[in-house]
């Protein structure tokens, strides 16, 4: 008798959890769900999303066309990968010196709930001044991630907070908005600057 109650409650609990997971999947993981390997990001001209930069300007993929572009995804509550990527990129931009001034460098948050315009402004302020921080409504972040074929997922932590799994690659586009290459997180970092130079070179060749 006692046991039957437990079983019934257990089933209800499983149902509730499944429903929550389903809702969570739909809202967070649906549009940003992992893509099959080999799916290349779209050209910037084929993307469609509206976000706000850390200075409050309305931005979108068209903002980036006309100059070579570096884009990466992350979030400011990320203790390890994101500050590492941001400091690596800051170092690459220092190596590129004046060439870096010709580029767009954009950090798009996958955690818009916590990463407000103000939070992004404060955070990017600690890194190279060329780095812009973009945030916006969850559905627009999802559309941006979809265009780049980036994925992200909210994961609860033991402390009652949550962290985000996300694509840690850096995307490089030429001035026309075509993908040049990607820098994977595990790649030796000395390969990064030559790759960025390639994006810049295509820009020079494409210049009229």
């Amino acid at each position, binding site marked *: 008798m006692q046991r039957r109650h437990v079983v019934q409650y257990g089933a209800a609990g499983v149902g509730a959890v499944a429903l929550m997971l389903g809702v969570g999947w739909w809202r967070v993981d649906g549009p940003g769900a*992992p*893509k099959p*390997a080999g799916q290349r990001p779209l050209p910037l001209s084929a993307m469609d999303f509206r976000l706000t930069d850390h200075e409050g300007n309305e931005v979108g993929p068209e903002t980036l066309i006309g100059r070579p572009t570096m884009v990466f995804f992350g979030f*400011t*509550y990320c*203790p*390890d*990968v994101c*500050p*590492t990527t*941001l*400091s*690596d990129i*800051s*170092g690459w931009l220092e190596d590129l010196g004046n060439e870096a001034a010709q580029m767009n460098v954009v950090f798009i948050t996958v955690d818009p709930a916590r990463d407000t315009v103000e939070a992004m402004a*404060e*955070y990017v302020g*600690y*890194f190279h001044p060329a780095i812009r921080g973009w945030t916006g409504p969850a559905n627009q972040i999802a559309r941006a991630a979809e265009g780049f074929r980036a*994925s992200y997922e909210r*994961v609860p*932590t*033991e*402390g009652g*907070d949550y*962290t985000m*799994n*996300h*694509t*840690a*690659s850096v995307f490089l586009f030429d001035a026309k908005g075509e993908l040049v290459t*990607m820098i*994977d*997180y*595990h790649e030796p970092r000395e390969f990064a600057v030559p790759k960025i130079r390639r994006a810049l070179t295509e820009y020079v060749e494409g210049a009229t």
Partner: protein
Amino acid sequence: MSLLLLLSGTSTPVFAGSEDVVVENAWSRASIGVNRPGAAYMTVRNTGEDTVTLTGLTTPLAMMPEIHETKTNAEGVSSMAPAGEITIEPGQSVALKPGGLHAMLMKLQNPMIEGETFPLTLTFSDGGEVTVEVPILGIAARGPES
């Protein structure tokens, strides 16, 4: 006794293994306030002849310090999870470094301020402890020298 250990920063020789653990090149990044988790990095070297197992962390700086591991899969998606216990064979070392193992400092009690240090205690399965003063570098620091 434990207070003495904390102050002296060494473990006591009655333990089997952890007294031969040396922590090198510890560093961390400054935090923005206390809402975001911090991270600390170091090399943990076993200079002794017994295998040691690192079981946990304690620090007055954070209520929930834990060793986590960042992994990046074939699709380039990075994820983070508790690393569990870490076994270090005699003569070997384990590197806690950006993009891999790191001490994740959850529930910060104070902001991590550049130029300051904080004590971090590593606990081992033999009951021993090793405490290290971790320097806090800038938010954009890339390693122990930057």
